[in-house]
């Protein structure tokens, strides 16, 4: 990348399964104040552009970008909403800084999932209106079908997927931000109620409310603002086809392409050797395995056995989702990817408390837009 970009401030609010005491504006304000304080900036003066990430139907309001500026200090400033994954928003901020025209850019995303009373119907509303929506089944069937195919194509076992859920929910017990921490075994996971077979309930992430704000800055400015900048080394994002009828069901090609772009922009030739740990979307337990393989962090078809053997545990050779992932923290809708980024930032700054990984130097975060999409984004950070 032609210019250096770093994260110089991070703030958050939540994450909890309900936040009845605060409106979304108040959640955002809380997270923003923390991020700006850390970065030592005044948004009314020091920020060149604001990027928020939101989808109308997750908010229950059309043209949601109307409602973001005030609580972020973005009044009369350039504000854009990216309707995408949280990490897409981060990528947009990175691009603006790379143009040389913007020095400090703020990124925000939040979730008020608890306020959506009919969330499965909202997800169903994302389906192709002519070919798929009329089937009117709970949207998680798409994940169930994909998991079925993934297991068949790779030889991964259901138990290995259950190990992901057990690992992540256990990691979450060490994370003050996580609301779904639990000491469950792979057997417990396998025994939980079927949702969309082969998926069981404990393999599906619950939802959480929360808000996350990052402050990004160009190299020079970053060094002036903080002693601990977290550098953005590479960024990548990609879509695969939306057609259910012709998408690859076993392989997450969007993750492969997003990862490859991130590695290319970061100048990384051997991801597994040059990266120490990763926060990778685990909305459904099998997704963590599927994404790890697509991102080239392990050979195809081996993520399952690697996980079962403890290779991706907190104490393993390559910790994956030390935060507990979405399974442990709860899914934060559009902000989920930024929750992955947040953990990478905390780890690289040595602020991950009991979850701290020794010698964490380079981390990868990957977000997926969820059922029924084939879109994802990756970012590689280092300290």
């Amino acid at each position, binding site marked *: 990348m032609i210019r250096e970009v770093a994260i110089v401030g991070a703030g958050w609010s939540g994450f909890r399964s309900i936040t009845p005491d605060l409106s979304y504006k108040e959640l955002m304000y809380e997270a923003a104040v923390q991020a700006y304080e850390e970065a030592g900036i005044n948004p009314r003066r020091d920020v060149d552009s604001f990027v928020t990430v939101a989808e*109308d139907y997750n908010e229950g309001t059309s043209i949601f970008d109307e409602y973001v500026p005030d609580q972020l200090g973005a009044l*009369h400033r350039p504000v854009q909403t990216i309707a995408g994954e949280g990490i897409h928003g981060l990528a947009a901020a990175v691009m603006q800084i790379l143009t040389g025209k913007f020095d400090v850019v703020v990124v925000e995303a939040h979730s008020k999932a608890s306020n959506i009373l009919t969330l499965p119907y909202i997800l169903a509303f994302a389906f192709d*209106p002519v070919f798929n929506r009329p089937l009117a089944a709970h949207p998680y069937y798409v994940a169930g079908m994909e998991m079925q195919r993934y297991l068949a194509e790779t030889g991964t076992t259901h138990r290995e997927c259950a190990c992901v859920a057990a690992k992540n929910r256990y990691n979450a017990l060490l994370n003050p931000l996580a609301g779904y921490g639990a000491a469950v075994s792979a057997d417990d996971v396998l025994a939980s109620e079927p949702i969309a077979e082969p998926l069981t309930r404990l393999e599906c992430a619950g939802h959480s409310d929360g808000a996350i704000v990052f402050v990004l800055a160009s190299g020079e400015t970053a060094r002036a603002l903080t002693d601990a900048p977290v550098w953005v080394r590479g960024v990548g994002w990609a*879509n695969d086809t939306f057609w259910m009828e012709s998408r690859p069901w076993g392989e997450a090609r969007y993750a492969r392409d997003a990862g490859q772009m991130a590695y290319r922009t970061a100048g990384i030739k051997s991801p597994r050797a040059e990266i120490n740990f990763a926060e990778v979307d685990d909305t459904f337990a099998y997704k963590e395995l599927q994404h790890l393989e697509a991102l080239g962090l392990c050979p195809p078809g081996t993520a399952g056995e690697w996980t079962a053997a403890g290779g991706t545990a907190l104490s393993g050779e390559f910790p994956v989702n030390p935060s507990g992932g979405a399974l442990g923290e709860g899914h934060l809708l559009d902000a989920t990817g930024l929750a992955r980024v947040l953990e990478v930032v905390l780890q690289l700054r040595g602020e991950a408390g009991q979850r701290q990984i020794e010698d964490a130097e380079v981390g990868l975060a990957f977000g997926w837009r969820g059922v*029924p999409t*084939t*879109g994802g984004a990756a970012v590689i950070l280092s300290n």
Partner: protein
Amino acid sequence: MNGNRVAIVGAGMTKFVRRAQETAKELAWEAAHLALESCEMTLDDVDAVVIGTAPDAFDAVHMKSEYLSDGCGAWGKPYMRGYVGGGTGVFAPIQGWYHVASGLFDTVLVVCEEKMSSCQPHPQGAFLTIFDHTTERPLWPNLLWIFALEMNAYMSRYGLDKRDIATVAVKNKRNAADHPAALLGDPNITVEDILNTEVMAWPVQRGDVSPITDGAVALVMCANHVARRVTDKPVWIEGVGWSIDTAYWANRDLSYPTYVEEAARMAYEMAGITEPRKQIHIAEPYDPFDYKELHHLEGLMLFDKGKAPEAAAAGVTQRDGDLPVCPSGGLLGVGNPIAAAGLMKVAEIFWQLRGEADARQVPGNPKRGLAQAWGDLMQVGTVVVMGV
């Protein structure tokens, strides 16, 4: 501008119609492939795709960009959607600009699409949900209210004459008669015709309002070194600007669009424009209502506050006037498929600056133009300055 210079090298669009048979995906595809055809490029040449599309409630698909992705050429490519309400159509090329100027991509396809007719019983109804869910929606507001409230504030503040404002609708619908994609082009319409239409939300009459429309527009944007290979008439992005005002819109002075001025200042600074009235040769401000064209012209600092209507009535903004405004026919004449409407304006400046606007061509070899869009609760301004 330092760094990577970025140019628009191709454009394509669909006809704007009240209700298209084509699906949203198909509309996006038609515009996208025509844009590529226009500069003899293929999808293999495209490094990334930007989609601009406004409320999901119209097309009736949540996470609409995902559904549209195939039609936009985004298969296997980096794909991103920016969304700033009605401002989206001019924001999309800004997004395309920063994709290329960042150095990460050389060629970007920018697509804007809207299929408002999907929303039943009337697309107008979807606008109910733009209002604050707790403090405003229980009053069952109509989108027309907010425009009428603003129009009233503007007219009262400056003592404006409705006849002067109506000349904008006449100009644009007449201009649109020369636009091949236009829905409401009418070479014979008069001010009396506009003033005789029924009152919708006083002072807004039916003739003042742009129509609900389906349509799509696409542009191809390239870095300097690619643009020069692809065409001998690249249209350069010289300045971009965007700004948003407070969501508490009832706390604001509605008689002046501060958000447009903020966006314009940002774009003018980048483009090195110090005397906009002299240095901008054509303007395509957003005209969802006739008075908005005037309101925005003042925000763009092309006319003094309260003075745009008399200039319009005097013919200054006609195609052969001193400052042609909306030579395309604008939203009032061509149609208003929200995001696509804004990009249509950018495409118009593109064609005008290349001398390819056919019967709409403004005389005098214009070298620099701007397009502006507006969005949200009278809140967002997006501006792009282009030049050859």
